[in-house]
């Protein structure tokens, strides 16, 4: 879990000519994309723009979806879903350790839970947790595997606004400590700008905008305006 600060130049994820379609309707249209190792990327788009399809393709869980193209991704990939997906019949710690074995697994699970602020809740049942806590547990479950790539599919979409702000800070902090490549799918422009170093806008199955975010004071509003315009939202931009 040692933080490694050196940026690798080899891309963690490489898509070439990625095409996916549902019943003849093209959802992803010949996408070329490189995600450098350790980069925090947000993928913005309307609902139905294909952003979840892209994430599921990278995760390798798009069974039965027609498509072509090549795709390379790291060995250790973790996914955080919109719902926490904790198995209701297992307590929190075994949920975090799902699919993990080895003698020190328990220790690592406890450490991951502590890192997301859930120390002491190892023996709680999932339905005893609040929505935010459950999502923290899901984050711990993805972290404990020390992923090289973390895929997050609207992970905060079901949370209330206050919890979401706290979760943003937590995710950014965890990313700074462990430096996995992150692909965050969201439809929240502010969330994308607040968290990511690079924001992609997916539109009609293609990358419509590829924006690098520089963290400097006062830049947020300008990025927001550009992204909203790329998404076709002009009324709210004053």
């Amino acid at each position, binding site marked *: 879990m040692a933080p490694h600060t050196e940026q690798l130049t080899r891309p963690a994820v490489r898509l070439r000519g990625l095409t996916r379609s549902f019943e003849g309707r093209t959802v992803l249209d010949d996408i070329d994309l490189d995600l450098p190792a350790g980069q925090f990327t947000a993928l913005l788009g309307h609902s139905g723009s294909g952003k979840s399809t892209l994430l599921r393709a990278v*995760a*390798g*869980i798009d069974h039965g979806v027609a498509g072509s193209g090549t795709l390379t991704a790291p060995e250790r*990939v*973790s*996914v955080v*879903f919109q*719902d926490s*997906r904790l*198995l*209701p*019949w*297992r307590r929190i710690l075994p949920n975090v350790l*799902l*699919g*993990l074995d080895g003698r020190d697994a328990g220790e690592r699970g406890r450490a991951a839970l502590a890192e997301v602020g859930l120390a002491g809740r190892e023996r709680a*049942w999932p*339905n*005893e947790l609040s929505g935010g806590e459950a999502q923290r547990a899901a984050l711990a*479950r993805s972290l404990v*595997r020390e992923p090289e790539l973390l895929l997050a599919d609207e992970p905060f979409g079901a949370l209330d606004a206050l919890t979401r702000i706290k979760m943003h800070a937590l995710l950014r902090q965890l990313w700074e400590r462990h430096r996995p490549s992150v692909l965050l799918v969201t439809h929240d422009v502010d969330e994308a700008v607040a968290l990511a170093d690079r924001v992609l806008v997916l539109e009609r199955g293609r990358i419509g905008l590829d924006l690098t975010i520089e963290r400097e004071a006062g830049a947020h509003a300008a990025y927001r305006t550009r992204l909203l315009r790329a998404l076709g939202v002009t009324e709210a931009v004053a």
Partner: protein
Amino acid sequence: MTAVTTTTATPPGSTAPSTAEEGHRVRRRRRLSPGRRLPATRLLGPALVLVLWAAASAAGELDPGAVPAPWTVLETGARLWTEGTLADDILTSLRRAGSGFVIGLTAGILLALASGLSRTGEALIDGSVQLNRAVPTLGLIPLFILWLGIGETFKIAIIAIVVYIPIYLNTHAALSGIDHRFVELAEVQGLSRLAFIRQVVVPGALPGFFVGLRLGVTGSWLGLVVLEQINATSGLGYLMFQAQNYGQTDVILVGLVVYGIFGLVSDTAVRLIERRVLSWRRTLSS
């Protein structure tokens, strides 16, 4: 969550328009739910029936030949136990029901797993079981007697069939109803097929399995009663059938009581196991 009885503020749901000078007293609404449960109320009804029965017998209102008094039934039971064959009959009946149940349980689980976890298995098994279900199992008795003879084998086979069907149906339904999101999670977490079955499929299907298990237990007693009363030379049902020939209503009642105890004990046992195994669900309802 209960309403405060005396308050001067107008609640948002109040029917009368609020006035600035005076609000309305909130009166608690008439409760429409039956309210809190009384302790041990389930036993109240049966106890009342027993008291009425005893009272009517003591008053001589009941024909002892048709409905013997409760104490006569108890005496007959004790006599049959010490001098007669009641203990042997119970043992024989238990062995039949038990063997049939274990075979049916095993078959139900194995078939449900095979059919729920593989498309080939489903194609081969599910249709056949549905067809089997459509034929009333007790209607198979004549055929099974011709195939297996009138001994124990055919009785156990019939009970096994009565048991395996509800267990298969409910377990299979639970298996195919497992949340697809959990399957996806298992894929993402890199679970092996065996770990997936052990950690996701089996616990996810357990609630449905227990529904089938309880139906199966009931079914095993039902099958036993029918089989023993028509084609047996030993066992509880045979005892009762003989008593019918000699007009011994007290013996018939002893048999019914024993059947009742069998059913009650086995159902309670299944329910206790269920509560233990599915303890994670209790937190939902409490």
